[in-house]
């Protein structure tokens, strides 16, 4: 049974595309057949993060408008063969997407893939609402920072009212992915803690990704971080998140002999 998952946030620059690529790659590495769909029409970037920017021929808009067949537009990753990309158009704008066209493409993708990961554009306009429209579950990406948390709250409200599931009276499954976290600053009271954000947004926690140079290095090289350096804390956080999405029981990693702060926060960051 296929699952459509939207990765969304409201605010830009919090790590939606990085997280879409890393979660999609981690799911594919776990043997799932995955397609990443870039909904950021006009500002595509998922191709770049995946290192597939030179292989884009057709895109989502071409398929939605019937100018290309779906298999022509799909790009298979060269490193993980069950990972695919449906890129966004770089030359069109979000009005090129239609609700009916997107629905048709999603239905077609459901027949081919276990996971359809929709990377939402920032904002609350058409692109973002179309990206979340057909989702079975949502990953809300937030930074521990006031504007990001406020926008996430707004997006959660939209997930509960503007999606097909919500309109049909069904429950919309939502998960929080907290990125750019700094456990040290949180411990010193300089940054909201994981618990603070969880209490405010009141949705279950999928994972905490600490601020890390590995993420930038991986995107520089065109690799999802889970592929580039699977042992990096950020990559581990995404891999554990993917396992949770697959319904696996994920136990906290065994406590190493570390300082109290590191034990309290470092482990949570990896879990």
């Amino acid at each position, binding site marked *: 049974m296929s699952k459509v998952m939207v990765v969304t946030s409201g605010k830009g620059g919090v790590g939606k595309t990085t997280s879409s690529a890393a979660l999609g790659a981690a799911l594919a590495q776990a043997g799932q057949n995955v397609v990443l769909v870039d909904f950021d029409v006009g500002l595509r970037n998922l191709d770049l993060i995946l290192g597939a920017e030179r292989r884009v021929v057709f895109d989502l808009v071409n398929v939605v408008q019937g100018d290309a067949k779906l298999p022509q537009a799909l790009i298979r990753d060269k490193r993980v063969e069950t990972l695919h990309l449906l890129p966004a158009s770089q030359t069109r704008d979000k009005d090129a997407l239609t609700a009916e066209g997107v629905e048709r493409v999603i239905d077609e993708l459901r027949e081919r893939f276990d996971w359809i990961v929709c990377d939402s554009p920032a904002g609350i306009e058409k692109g973002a609402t179309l990206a979340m429209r057909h989702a079975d579950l949502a990953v809300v990406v937030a930074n521990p*920072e*006031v504007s990001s*948390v*406020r926008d996430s*709250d*707004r997006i959660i*409200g939209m997930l509960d009212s503007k999606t097909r599931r919500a309109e049909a009276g069904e429950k919309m499954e939502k998960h929080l992915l907290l990125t750019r976290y700094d456990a040290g600053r*949180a411990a*010193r*009271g*300089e*940054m*909201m*803690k994981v618990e*603070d954000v969880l*209490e*405010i947004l009141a949705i279950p926690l999928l994972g905490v990704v600490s601020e890390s140079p590995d993420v930038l290095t991986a995107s520089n090289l065109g690799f999802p971080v889970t592929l580039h350096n699977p042992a990096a804390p950020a990559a581990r956080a995404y891999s554990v998140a993917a396992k949770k999405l697959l319904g696996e029981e994920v136990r906290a990693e065994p406590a190493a002999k570390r300082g109290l702060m590191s034990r309290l926060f470092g482990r949570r960051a990896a879990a």
Partner: protein
Amino acid sequence: MNLLNLFNRSRSAPVARDRLQVLLAHERAFGGDADLAAVLEKEILEVIARHIPVDRDKVLVKLERGDHVSTLAIDIEMPETALARG
């Protein structure tokens, strides 16, 4: 004093959390009716304009959000002639 300031400044996270909790409680309550203040202003002014001329530039609308109670204040400057006429 300086040391205290330094300490307080670094512990900004609780302030962020508290501000968000107050703000979001309001935004959720008025979520579907995003611009309640604007709607109230418009309708109240319509009622008043039926009786006295109102200069839109001399209307001041203030919405003050508190933890438990919010206040909406609408100040309307009435021309001298308005009351005299009545």
